[in-house]
């Protein structure tokens, strides 16, 4: 006690000072340490990893039920939760085989780039008006689309640098896919920006307080959803890695942890596009306030919507075969692009005549 007295004065003062320290810690955590939390937890490391782990586990277990199987069963009890970790350790410890006639530096760097570039886009997603990791105001949406526009180049490089015929075909399929998918996607996003009157993602979310943009822009909503599936290479549009046609598409030559990175990329792409989809059409973080905490409930609602969307996307995987490359181009250019333009004109007309 004497030490405390010496440090803080009498007991009353101690109480006041402790309260002050606690308040300071709280303030530090919520205001000053927010960047640290953002990097390590929410849009950053933990969220990405936990989502990838959850998504892989859920996909395996859920699809197993669709196939009348049990799925992972032995690691971590009957749920098989630890199977993902076991697989990760296995991938990490496996030998990385580098083909003899490739540039080893580019070869080992490209899978890392494949998963790192789309992860960059996560910094722009608003989890709350005050929880945007990199708030660049009116540049938010264009910046997101710019980063995600670079992302598809990475699989193209990865397939090119593998020096394998299957990887080569796979990488050019990636290029074709993105050309046909990206344009309707950007046009639909432009319609959203026009309706919200801003490129700022926070403003777009705030504009959806009363009505989600999915309702007035139902056409754009559908187009963007298909665009998300195309861009994130999810079934039925997993054409670049079509296992039964090209052995594993642009991923064929990667082994060990490099393969792990390419798998991770699939989920990071899905994560980034799905979060943007929710932000643009499904009201972003908007939702009833629960437990009295505004930031907490906003984050809760965004993550809930995100999980429901991911479950739906996984569900599609057991329902549809995949189209051919030429059919894919036809879907992109003959249907999605004109429909997205139609949506844009409808939104412009609504804006000009002041319907919204």
């Amino acid at each position: 006690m004497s030490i405390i007295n010496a440090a803080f004065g009498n007991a009353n003062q101690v109480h006041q000072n402790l309260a002050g320290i606690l308040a300071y810690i709280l303030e530090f955590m919520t205001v000053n340490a927010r960047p640290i939390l953002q990097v390590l937890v929410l849009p950053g490391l933990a969220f990405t990893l936990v989502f990838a782990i959850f998504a892989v586990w859920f996909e395996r277990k859920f699809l197993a039920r669709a196939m009348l199987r049990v799925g992972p069963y032995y690691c971590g009890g009957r749920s098989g939760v630890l199977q993902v970790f076991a697989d990760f350790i296995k991938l990490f410890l496996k030998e990385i085989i580098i083909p003899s006639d490739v540039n080893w530096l580019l070869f080992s760097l490209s899978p890392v780039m494949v998963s790192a570039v789309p992860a960059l886009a996560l910094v722009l997603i608003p989890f709350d008006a005050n929880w945007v990791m990199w708030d660049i105001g009116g540049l938010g949406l264009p910046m997101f689309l710019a980063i995600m526009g670079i992302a598809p180049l990475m699989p193209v490089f990865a397939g090119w640098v593998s020096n394998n015929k299957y990887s080569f075909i796979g990488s050019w399929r990636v290029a074709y896919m993105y050309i046909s998918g990206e344009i309707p996607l950007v046009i639909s996003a432009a319609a959203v920006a026009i309706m919200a009157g801003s490129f700022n993602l926070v403003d777009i979310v705030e504009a959806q307080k009363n009505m989600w943009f999915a309702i007035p822009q139902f056409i754009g909503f559908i187009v963007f959803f298909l665009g998300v599936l195309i861009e994130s290479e999810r079934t039925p549009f997993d054409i670049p890695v079509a296992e039964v046609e090209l052995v594993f598409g642009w991923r064929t030559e990667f082994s060990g942890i490099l393969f792990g990175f390419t798998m991770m990329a699939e989920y990071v792409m899905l994560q980034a596009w799905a979060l943007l989809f929710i932000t643009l059409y499904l009201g972003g973080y908007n939702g009833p306030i629960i437990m009295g905490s505004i930031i907490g409930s906003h984050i809760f609602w965004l993550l809930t919507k995100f999980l429901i969307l991911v479950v739906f996307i996984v569900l599609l995987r057991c329902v549809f075969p995949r189209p051919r490359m030429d059919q894919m181009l036809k879907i992109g250019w003959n249907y999605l692009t004109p429909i997205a333009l139609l949506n844009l004109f409808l939104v412009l007309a609504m804006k000009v005549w002041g319907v919204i």
Partner: protein
Amino acid sequence: MAEPEITPELMRISWGPQHPMSGQTRILLDTDGEKVHRIIADLGFTHRGIEKVLENRSLIGGIVPIDRMAMVDTANISIGYVTAAEKALGLEVPERANWIRSLVCEMSRINSHLYAFGLQAEATGYFPAVFLWTTIDREILLDLFEELTGARWSFNFFLPGGVYKDFPEGFADRVVEGVNYLRNRFKDYWNAMIENPMFEMRCDNVAILEPKDALRLGATGPVLRGSGIPVDMRNEEPYAAYADLDWEIITEDACDVMARTKVRFHEIGQSLNMMEQIAKEIPEGEIKTRFSPFARAPEGEHISRVENGRGEMSTHLWTNGTPNPYRVKILPPSLRNMYVFERLAELSHITVADIPVVINSIDPWYLDADR
């Protein structure tokens, strides 16, 4: 195989044998981007010399190696050999044995078509849900096989002169139960595959094989009937009990991958009807004509033609008065259809993405083709 020359501007892809979908063969594709200009099938990876093995066995001992030609379609393969051996030995088959043979053959045909279906679904890029459904539904048939013959696969059930065993007690009822279960399941397959618009997209107007080309190239089985030509060995040269059963030849006129898939689908329906009819109307009587296992077949040349799940299989048997056959020549359906597959790139527009779909619509069984 000496690889043929390649045009310099094309890229040659070696599709298999180490490929998730290729099976035990190698197919060389000369491609220009996605378009396939030439298909070269390199068979022979699983050659086991079954024809030579048969020369070293007695006529009845031959039923063991012949069963191994196509595990998924065992009964239909072995009935071809057994029918030829009966002709050589001059044996009469009792009527009840013929009906049991037809039952086992039809079950085997369903087994084979189910497998083809599952692979077809997987080849179009279906996540393997449908493949596993078909695999699980096959259990019904395998259980029936086990009950009747004592083995789930490769039952050496057909002997020259009859069958090995009669129906166990209550077997006919369980056949009807199985038929009813499978009929319900096939509604699911119809919805998941034929009715699925994405599946239609992949299969309609792909790999069109005109009837004249099908005849010229010697196509057989569902490939030929998918081109609208009603040829079925069960009808041309009725063996077992097919002359007494009610069934019809299924044909489709679209000539594409979808037509072949539909032919398989409807053939399963016909097979289920036949199974039900056999279970209900099978005549009583003996099940085998006894003969010495070392019986010597007189010198002669005998041919049997039977309809496998994959098409017509002809067995050509020479005997020279010894217990063993002098020479056996088998023309399996998969080999004939592989020649058709090689020419499909010239006959229609095929892309790299179509290759697994097309090859599974042809449905070759490489162990059968290589013998």
